[in-house]
């Protein structure tokens, strides 16, 4: 049989069907030898190391897949999806061995789920890195995430669930030359879906903790931390008409003073002129200031913050829009909401300009007091307000744009919120959260929505849980949003049953009963169930999802209405 095959092959060689092994084979056999040698060496090494119990390093990672099956549902405005099902997944794998680590993330979008940017298309490895670290030095090559201060001029991070990833690919160096001193340097190009943005980003940051650095100050009650950074982006100017700055620099300084229960933090940033699509190509420089103070002791926490942002959108491509190619991060001062109806009108920072302030007080009424009962009671009050900048348009508004008085607040309200939340445990079985919110939300500005001005809403929430026994708990959420604007009032009910530590099931309905248009008084029902074990979590949910803005950690994306089954699997290993 073998002979026959051989003869056949030889025949094929003769008639030229298979290329003859030629001189190339010398190279190939060399390759083969190398392979052989490598395999033997590896086997030896493994045997040796297992015998010696040498550290081979570790492999770990995590995984998530979201698969959504879509039903067309014209009532809620969910258009048919030609693929019927869409999928978003990723897998992170990291290898670490002592001071060395390397990793990559595989991402798959076949096709990307609705509500994400369709430019996430297909599969790829948009994240890979290698790094080593010792006490004084850390070097990372490949993709990395980093933040200077609060991120006012530089922050790269990812939030896969929101389709947000502005990692830099390049080199990052972190130095700790002396206790209390950290120096960082970064250079790279930003991730743009499965490609890179046009610009190059360079930056450096230094931070010094005076008390840690200088022995004399070590015992002082007042702690001072100072920081400063400089970031610059380069993008060629190919514009036929305008002369655009190819190098745009931004600098920031920060100060943190801590004394006992008081913590003061302030950061200021300045950016030279940076005409871009976001600021309508004006040549005005940008600046931003954040001041926050907190006082806290056991049972009491107070936070006050104020900020001013003026023309601070900073992207590595001047033509980029949306949540892509951001070099900096401008956080919002509004409270980050937990409940569905409270987050229906979520404010997002206006990078072109805003002035805001926020105050929050948390107070825990002690156990065994009249109000506190057996377990105590926690009261949280939060107030926040954001307005436009005071702006005077310049005669040639296309060049410098406008003038603005630094300390004057503009008239138009962007958002305002009063929020009172009470958490109380009544007995070992019953826990409750009550919340009342008053919100003003400028939809015209935040979502660039026409025909809608400010939405005034009152929201009430009751979250009640009853622990049947050690494993079984039943929880209900009742929420109501009252407004005369936009889509009118909403009500929501949720019932959840959990069996610790492995199972949960829930049903919910969101009802837009107050819609002026009777045909749009719709129910958004949903049922879900899940299984958890260790790091594994599998969940299924079926139902309708309303169209809206979905936000986590200050980044928001628009989610269209949908109807169907969503399967999510997450795991870590």
């Amino acid at each position, binding site marked *: 049989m073998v002979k026959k095959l051989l003869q056949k092959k030889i025949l094929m060689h003769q008639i030229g069907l298979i290329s003859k092994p030629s001189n190339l084979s010398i190279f190939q056999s060399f390759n083969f030898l190398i392979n052989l040698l490598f395999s033997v060496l590896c086997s030896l090494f493994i045997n040796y190391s297992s015998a010696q119990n040498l550290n081979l390093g570790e492999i770990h990672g995590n995984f998530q897949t979201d698969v959504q099956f879509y039903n067309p549902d014209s009532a809620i405005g969910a258009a048919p999806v030609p693929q019927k099902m869409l999928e978003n997944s990723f897998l992170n794998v990291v290898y670490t061995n002592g001071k060395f680590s390397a990793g990559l993330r595989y991402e798959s979008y076949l096709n990307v789920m609705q509500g994400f940017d369709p430019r996430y298309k297909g599969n790829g490895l948009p994240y890979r890195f290698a790094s080593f670290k010792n006490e004084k030095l850390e070097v990372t090559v490949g993709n990395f995430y980093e933040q200077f201060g609060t991120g006012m001029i530089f922050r790269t991070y990812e939030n896969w669930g929101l389709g947000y990833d502005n990692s830099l690919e390049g080199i990052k160096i972190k130095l700790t030359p002396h206790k209390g001193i950290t120096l960082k340097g970064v250079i790279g190009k930003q991730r743009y879906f499965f490609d890179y943005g046009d610009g190059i980003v360079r930056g450096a940051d230094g931070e010094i903790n005076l008390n840690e650095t200088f022995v004399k100050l070590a015992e002082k009650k007042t702690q001072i931390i100072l920081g400063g950074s400089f970031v610059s982006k380069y993008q060629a100017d190919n514009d036929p008409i305008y002369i655009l700055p190819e190098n745009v620099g931004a600098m920031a300084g920060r100060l943190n003073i801590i004394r006992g229960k008081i913590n003061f933090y302030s950061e200021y940033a300045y950016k030279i002129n940076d005409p871009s699509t976001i600021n309508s190509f004006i040549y005005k420089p940008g600046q931003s200031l954040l001041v926050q103070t907190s006082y806290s002791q056991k*049972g009491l926490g107070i936070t006050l913050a104020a900020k001013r942002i003026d023309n601070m959108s900073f992207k590595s491509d001047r033509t980029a829009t949306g949540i892509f190619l951001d070099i900096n991060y401008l956080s919002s001062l509004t409270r980050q909401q937990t409940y569905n109806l409270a987050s229906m009108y979520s404010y997002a920072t206006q990078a072109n300009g805003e002035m805001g302030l926020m105050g929050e007080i948390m107070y825990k009424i002690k156990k065994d007091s009249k109000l506190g009962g057996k377990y105590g009671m926690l009261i949280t009050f939060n107030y926040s307000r954001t307005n436009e900048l005071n702006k005077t348009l310049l005669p040639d508004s296309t060049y410098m744009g406008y003038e603005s008085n630094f300390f004057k607040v503009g008239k138009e309200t962007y958002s305002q919120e009063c929020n009172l939340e009470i958490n109380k445990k009544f007995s070992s079985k019953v826990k409750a959260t009550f919340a009342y919110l008053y919100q003003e939300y400028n939809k015209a500005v935040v979502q660039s929505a026409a025909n809608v001005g400010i939405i005034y809403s009152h929201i009430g929430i009751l979250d009640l849980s009853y622990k049947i026994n050690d494993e079984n708990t039943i929880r209900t959420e009742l929420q109501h949003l009252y407004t005369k604007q936009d889509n009118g009032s909403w009500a929501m009910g949720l019932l959840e049953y959990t069996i610790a530590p492995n199972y949960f099931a829930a049903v919910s309905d969101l009802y837009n009963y107050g819609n002026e248009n009777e045909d749009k008084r719709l129910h958004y029902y949903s049922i879900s169930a899940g299984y958890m074990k260790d790091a594994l979590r599998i969940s299924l949910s079926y139902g309708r999802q309303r169209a809206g803005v979905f936000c986590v950690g200050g980044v928001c994306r628009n989610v269209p209405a949908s109807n169907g089954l969503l399967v999510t699997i997450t795991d870590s290993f």
Partner: protein
Amino acid sequence: MIISVPFIIYYKLRTMIKNILSLLFICQLSITALAQEKNHKLPAVDVKTLDGKTFNTANFDNGGKPIIIDFWATWCKPCVKELNAIAEVYEEWEKETGVKVIAISIDDARNMAKVGPFVNGESWDYDVYIDSNGDFKRAMNVNNVPHTFLLNGNKEIVWQHNSYSEGDEKELLAELKKLKAVKKN
């Protein structure tokens, strides 16, 4: 024609040996991996203390006793519930097992300033650190919060759990007790 015969044999042999070798290599790798299946060590990443100091996670220490690491955020209701549930029994657990709870807040610049007042407001006695850009979260492969890890006395991860439902702390305590039992043996 005759010249090509040895080449073909050589090729055949080469592929065969190569296949066998790679198979062996894979087998050996997996066997070694299985034989050596050990718990992950704590990664070394910089986080911040509540008073703004940089702290390396490799320096988390509880003098050879177990550590619980809990990833949370001020806006995450189940996280706060879990930390409150543990707070109620923390003293007991400490006495019984010597365990220490380290709470890692993943709040970013938006809520960072609130973390200290929040922890005090809740009257928690945990060691709290801020991981505002998710460096430690990524190094620990955390998908969502809350995510809880249990570390043994050698600071190796022996158990983890994602999400929180009321009563989950019971499983955590059982795992803690298992550690104690192992130590006794």
